[in-house]
């Protein structure tokens, strides 16, 4: 026990550091300065408040809806089913990196501590964030439900063990699955491949959830409970909960919180949890350390023949060499791929699909009895859009500005190079060539995005060619400007000393500052449009010309700034 507690101290600090790292970037100049405790506390408080808010809103809305149909107990079963699902998803995503891919594992394995102690400490380190996140997602809504449905005081007392029971046993079973998989299969041993797959799965889950939410008639969801108030769904959930004994007994414990039977249900749920954890510890003791040792070792690759080597060494221009290197790094680094290419390509497509579903699902929104798509098509067909180009410019400009946020900035950021930036500094290639090569992937990605979106809009709304070209032009100009702004900030304040690739693309200073810049830029363009409109007695054509000219002027100004300052900024970056 003593060794366990000693081990938990650094593991706990490591876990906290991993959570907050990347959200608060550190620069070389301040590498010896400890991270501000205030900013860390603020960050955690923000996350807790944000999750709790959504959880409470769902708890209140769904409870009220279920009360209408007299099925408020179903809410507890929903939570009793949701918590194990969250535990399973978060558990797998959390466990494999933490139990098998962390570099600190080697320093633990050589310590004169029993393997079972190391195993227990690592499992605890994995459980804590899974439990906290699941609780954060579920517990506030459980309390909100209790208040809205006037549950007895025993409900609130029992809600605490409830969260433990519905999380710990599923966690134990998830871990057994992970341990067996990592010991006897190879699929998750490749760290890069695993990170890539899990990141894509996570993004797809979020996107699917957002599409699902989009497809729900939002106006009456909190009044009727949407699909949850459907008797068939209720029956299905009641059946499903029986397949998870800990969830079934925990739900029964909470539903009957004012009866003596609650103690029996609690006892059985507790017993099942103890058995699950015991089983996990026995299995983990036998296979965890062996599984860890099995993940190490070099990769082999096919040897090159002389002919292949000659082909792979074919000369290219310096620009193409740097550009090719950038593409390889973007495609092969899981953090860079998911945060830039995958996100950039997926997001607009999904957003367009989401809008389309939303439009198609909505009932008639005009007096003419058409839905929004039909109305917009009619509006375009009649040529009325020609009097509102300035509004189209503002909307497209705003969307393009947001789309080209972190993802496109990351695609061009020199921060991605990390300590290897020393190579860029000492190669005999003019800075202008290097800058152009760094910016090219972002520019190409942005062009692809807007081609996809413009084609989608043209198909949905029957855009005439002239309007499609206006949309494309405005979008490209604004995306380009935001990319240059992010690039300039990144050159001024690069994060080159990261130890984890995700730090280079997530929550960097350039991302943060340019996000705020996005708001300012959109605000200025909207303000300018209304100012010109009032000065010109609502001359729509002049307003449109001024707004588009403003966008172009900003793009030209930023291009000029990059050309003018890149060399100095490049030279003053110290390694």
């Amino acid at each position, binding site marked *: 026990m003593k060794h366990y507690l000693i081990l938990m101290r650094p593991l706990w600090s490591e876990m906290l550091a991993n959570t907050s790292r990347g959200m608060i970037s550190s620069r070389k100049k301040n590498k010896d300065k400890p991270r501000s405790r205030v900013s860390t506390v603020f960050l955690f408080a923000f996350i807790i408040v944000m999750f709790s808010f959504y959880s409470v809103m769902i708890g209140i809305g769904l409870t009220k809806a279920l009360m209408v149909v007299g099925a408020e107990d179903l809410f507890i079963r929903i939570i009793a089913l949701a918590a194990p699902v969250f535990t399973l998803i978060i558990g797998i995503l959390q466990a494999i990196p933490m139990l098998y891919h962390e570099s600190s594992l080697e320093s633990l394995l050589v310590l004169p501590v029993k393997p079972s102690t190391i195993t227990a400490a690592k499992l605890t380190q994995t459980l804590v964030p899974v439990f906290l996140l699941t609780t954060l997602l579920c517990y506030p809504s459980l309390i909100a439900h209790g208040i809205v449905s006037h549950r007895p005081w025993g409900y609130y007392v029992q809600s605490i063990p409830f969260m433990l029971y519905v999380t710990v046993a599923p966690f134990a079973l998830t871990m057994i699955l992970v341990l067996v998989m990592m010991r006897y299969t190879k699929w998750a041993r490749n760290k890069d491949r695993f990170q890539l797959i899990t990141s894509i799965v996570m993004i797809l889950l979020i996107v699917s959830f957002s599409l699902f939410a989009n497809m729900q008639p939002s106006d009456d969801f909190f009044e009727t409970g949407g699909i949850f108030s459907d008797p068939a769904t209720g029956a299905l959930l009641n059946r499903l909960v029986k397949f998870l004994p800990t969830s079934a007994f925990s739900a029964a414990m909470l539903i009957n919180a004012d009866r003596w039977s609650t103690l029996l249900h609690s006892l059985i749920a507790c017993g099942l949890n103890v058995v699950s954890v015991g089983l996990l510890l026995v299995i983990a003791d036998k296979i965890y350390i062996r599984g860890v040792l099995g993940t190490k070792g*070099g*990769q*082999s*690759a*096919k*040897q*090159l023949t*002389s002919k292949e*080597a*000659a082909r*792979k*060494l*074919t*000369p*290219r*221009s*310096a620009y*193409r*060499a*740097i550009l*090719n*290197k950038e593409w*390889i*790094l973007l495609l*092969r*680094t899981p953090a860079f791929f998911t945060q830039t290419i995958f996100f950039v390509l997926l997001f607009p497509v999904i957003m367009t699909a989401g809008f389309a579903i939303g439009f198609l699902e909505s009932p008639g929104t005009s007096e003419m009895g058409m839905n929004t798509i039909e109305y917009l098509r009619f509006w375009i067909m009649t040529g009325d859009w020609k009097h509102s180009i300035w509004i189209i410019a503002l909307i497209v400009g705003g969307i393009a500005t947001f789309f080209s946020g972190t993802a496109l900035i990351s695609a061009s950021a020199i921060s991605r*190079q*990390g*300590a*290897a930036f*020393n*190579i860029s*500094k*000492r*190669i*005999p*290639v*003019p800075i202008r060539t290097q800058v152009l090569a760094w910016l090219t992937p972002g520019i190409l990605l942005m062009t692809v995005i807007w081609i996809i979106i413009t084609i989608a809009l043209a198909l949905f709304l029957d855009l005439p060619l002239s309007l499609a070209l206006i949309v494309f032009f405005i979008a490209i100009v604004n995306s380009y400007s935001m990319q240059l702004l992010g690039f300039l900030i990144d050159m001024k304040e690069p994060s080159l000393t990261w130890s984890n690739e995700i730090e280079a693309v997530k929550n960097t200073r350039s991302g943060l500052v340019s996000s705020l810049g996005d708001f300012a830029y959109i605000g200025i363009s909207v303000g300018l449009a209304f100012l010109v409109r009032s000065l010109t007695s609502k001359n729509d054509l002049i307003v449109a010309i001024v707004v588009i000219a403003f966008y172009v002027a900003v793009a030209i100004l930023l291009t000029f700034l990059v050309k003018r300052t890149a060399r100095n900024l490049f*030279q*003053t970056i*110290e*390694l």
Partner: protein
Amino acid sequence: MIELKNVSKSYDGKKNAVDNVTLTIRDGEIFGFLGPNGAGKTTALKLITGLLLPDTGSIAIDGFDIEKDAIEAKRRFAFVPDNPEVFTRLKAIEYLRFIGDVYGVDGDVRKARVDELSKKFGIADVLNQQIKTFSHGMQQKLILVGALLHDPDTWILDEPMTGLDPASSFTLKTMMREYADAGKTVLFSTHILDVAEKVCDRLGIIDEGKLIFVGTVNELRAHYQDDSSLESLFLRLVSDTENASHGASFVE
């Protein structure tokens, strides 16, 4: 040839990591930079290679100022850092192609040099692997191969023996000699005084940013009228300098 004139660099604006260093490293010689930990060796090499900018003074490589004629100066040297920081997601062959491209090495020459050097350093079999799978020593060897790909006139190495196996270390020392004998300049920093004694034509000893000795090992022995090893002479010199409040330097 490398020329440093009154070069100073401070990180914090108070203490100079490199303090008013003036030095000329001639063509055809191997020059060793020695000094205790934190003496300023790596900072000096980073200044010479343009990774840092000096606060005062100037640095020229083959007559090209590293700040004003950066591209021309960079074409003339190759640098091997103490920590092999490379783009680890590239395969070794991709890294070498990248280096060949940015230094404009002709296709046939490039192929021949990669063949020759990768065999010499024992990495020919792993050229198709991602660099991230390499050990520290293997990465160091790859960087050495990359550094020599464009046949630079000046070769600058920071602690080059670190992580190398004995065979590669021997190969490297032999190549350094061959390079110098061919009229090229080799500048390297090291902690290993035996290597410095055997390999270097001249030494520069740096302590607390100041260059406290420049000359041959024999000149150092003559100064102390002591025939002992470089190790004991080095320790004596550093100790004397510290005792004399940095006044006992004898730079040529």
